[in-house]
């Protein structure tokens, strides 16, 4: 062993081969407790609520990321460049060369339009012509006289 050590640099030959490190005071005194606490912590059963949250975490994170990307790209465009966005929504049929920005914008606007259409279609109310007599009949059925008077006065 000594012969092996003699090969390592002159300055190190006569030094004790002890690593030049130390540990914080009392480190080894509490190690058993910390290890036992960690084992107990890791083996304690996780509640079903905790499991669900753990399972949902990546999905929620992904949804949040998409929402953030959408807000960062679409919202500034709609605020600062509404005309540009509107112009790019209608892509001419005979366009043969499309640049990357146009594609992204048209994708985003197309996406929002399709969602908008989806929801707005559900909420759309049919236009029905209502004459004055129908209105009064309806009010008479739904309200008392005082309420009808107040409504008409307004």
């Amino acid at each position, binding site marked *: *062993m000594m012969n*092996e*050590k003699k*090969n*390592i*640099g002159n*300055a*190190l030959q006569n*030094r004790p*081969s*002890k*690593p*030049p*490190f*130390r*540990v*914080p005071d009392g*480190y*080894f005194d509490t*190690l*058993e407790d*910390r*290890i*036992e606490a*960690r*084992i107990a912590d*890791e083996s304690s059963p996780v509640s079903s609520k905790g499991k669900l949250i753990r399972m949902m975490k990546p999905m929620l994170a992904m949804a949040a990321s998409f929402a953030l990307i959408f807000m960062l790209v679409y919202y500034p465009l709609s605020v600062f460049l509404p005309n540009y966005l509107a112009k790019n929504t209608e892509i001419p049929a005979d366009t043969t060369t499309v640049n990357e920005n146009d594609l992204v914008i048209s994708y985003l606007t197309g996406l929002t339009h399709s969602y908008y259409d989806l929801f707005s279609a559900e909420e759309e109310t049919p236009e029905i012509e209502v004459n004055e007599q129908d209105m009064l009949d309806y009010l008479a059925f739904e309200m008392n006289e005082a309420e009808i008077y107040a409504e008409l006065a307004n």
Partner: protein
Amino acid sequence: MKSDQQILAELKNESTKQAAFRTLVSLYKERLYWHVRKIVLSHEDADDVLQNTFVKVWRNIDGFREESGLFTWLYRIATNESLTFLSQKKKRAFVSSEETNDYIIENLQTDPYFDGDDIEYRLQKAIARLPDKQRLVFNMRYYDDIKYQDMEKILETSAGALKASYHHAVKKIEEYLKSEE
């Protein structure tokens, strides 16, 4: 003091398992700590790795088949945990092995628990630059004076290959120290 055989027998009995594990930690914590510390260098990292090592021992103690001694088994787990820890650091930081060694050296520079002077710092830098296997062999031989026959069981490598690794390591360290002078 209890022998390894006694500890192992108690670890396999549910009623004495907890107390025996505490005895095992007490008995080996310092030796394993210093083994790990020499690989990862910083105290914080060594503490993490040491705890991981003992948690793994606790989880796998029932599967320990006593083909090797308890000390050899513990050393092997600690070595694997240390190398896994460093490789995870490498993956997380998307860096090459050489840059991982830079991470180890940076850790050493900022570690308040490094007591060495300039020569010792340069020696640690030279050791950190070695490939993993050579670094392990060098530390085990130079600092811990572990025999090649024992190292064979821990690192699962022949004594001849270990001797060659040690001599390569010494040569590289010497060259590095000369270049730094």
